[in-house]
């Protein structure tokens, strides 16, 4: 497959951005408008040269996600009743149980999706939001890749929520065996949703603006 680049409008280098040219670009569809246009003429999205409220919304969702992440880990995710005996399992407890049953691969999947991804995501979003206002140690390209990874992988944390929902709607044999969701299932689902909204609020153009400011 041939890869050919579109020609940049600001020939020769350095590359020209819409903001430098006094124009406003739509992040939804790429259409470029004169300054002052409120809505995109092509797709109808709200236009802003830079989303000035972006960082506020990133941090607001980030904190909401973090606060609710604690009960998600401390309270039971799954409550199992077998012949009158009740077992409660937290997220980490569920992983340990899988290891005890020698299901190492599945334990690894759940550990990665429920613990590694959420923790990594909190750190990555905080770093990205921090780096647009301060000197970044990571290159623009590196941070762009980091942002894309966060956006792509963050949703996969929902695996454990689905597991709980499937098990508790499936295993309902009254006193013989029944499974119920714990409060952590709701907290965790909300935490994943909030951090997804946090990542979506981030305007990646801010990553590249820092470089612009430095070279000017």
């Amino acid at each position, binding site marked *: 497959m041939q890869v050919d680049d579109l020609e940049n409008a600001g020939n020769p280098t350095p590359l020209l951005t819409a903001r430098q040219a006094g124009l406003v670009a739509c992040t939804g569809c790429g259409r470029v408008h004169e300054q002052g246009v409120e809505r995109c003429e092509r797709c109808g999205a709200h236009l802003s040269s830079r989303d000035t409220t972006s960082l506020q919304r990133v941090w607001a969702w980030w904190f909401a996600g973090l606060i609710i992440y604690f009960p998600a880990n401390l309270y039971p995710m799954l409550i199992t009743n077998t012949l009158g005996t009740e077992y409660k399992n937290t997220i980490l407890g569920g992983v340990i149980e899988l290891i005890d049953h020698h299901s190492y691969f599945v334990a690894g999947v759940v550990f990665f999706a429920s613990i590694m991804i959420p923790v990594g995501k909190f750190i990555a979003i905080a770093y990205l939001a921090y780096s647009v206002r301060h000197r970044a140690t990571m290159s623009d390209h590196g941070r762009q890749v980091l942002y894309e990874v966060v956006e792509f992988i963050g949703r996969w944390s929902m695996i454990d929520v689905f597991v709980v929902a499937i098990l508790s709607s499936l295993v309902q044999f009254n006193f013989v065996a029944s499974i119920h969701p714990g409060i952590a299932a*709701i907290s965790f689902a909300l935490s994943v949703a909030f951090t997804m909204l946090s990542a979506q609020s981030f305007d990646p153009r801010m990553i590249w603006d820092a470089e612009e400011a430095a070279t000017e």
Partner: protein
Amino acid sequence: MTETRLDPSELVACPNCDTLHHMQDVPEGARARCMRCNEILMAPKGGAMTRIVVLAVTALILMIAVVFFPFLDLSASGLEQHSSVLDAIMAFSDGMLLPLTFAVAAFVVVLPAVRLMAIIYAIGPLIFDRPARPHAARAFRLAQTLRPWSMAEIFIVGVAVALVKIAGMATVSLGPAFWALVALVLVTTIKDTFMCKLTIWKTLETQRRS
């Protein structure tokens, strides 16, 4: 700035880094990348519109099978339980399960179905060279917004993990709805590889004017 005045309609800006590029015809099968951040700006494919609509309709039909056919059959110590996705949604057993089943219904059935319908509504008329429907742009924007919230593929992994977890407790067999869901995820993934956002937006724009 010393450059000559730029005509905005001749330009395309990278959604990631705001860099301006001159609009050019990109041959089918080729990919145009942003000169600065390497983001793929355009990747038109031959017959993409028709394929997107056909695949979206297929996925929507599969969704009907997912909802109404038995999903999992469970048997443990003489007891048996069949459950379709609809049963799971309707089983308002206890307090905590209710919001959870609503979340599952939204992420696995409702939002993916709405996204498919929005895509069919927006792109459908274009393959017959008909003018775009009113609010076609809004429908396609909705489809873009819903993309990260359609989680059928994640649900499948969830099913696999759940099966391992109750393996010692009960025997589970996969019903036709499960396989319909697997097919739906495959069809949706193939459809999304044909989706070149910029090409669709430009077509929607020209079809609205004509």
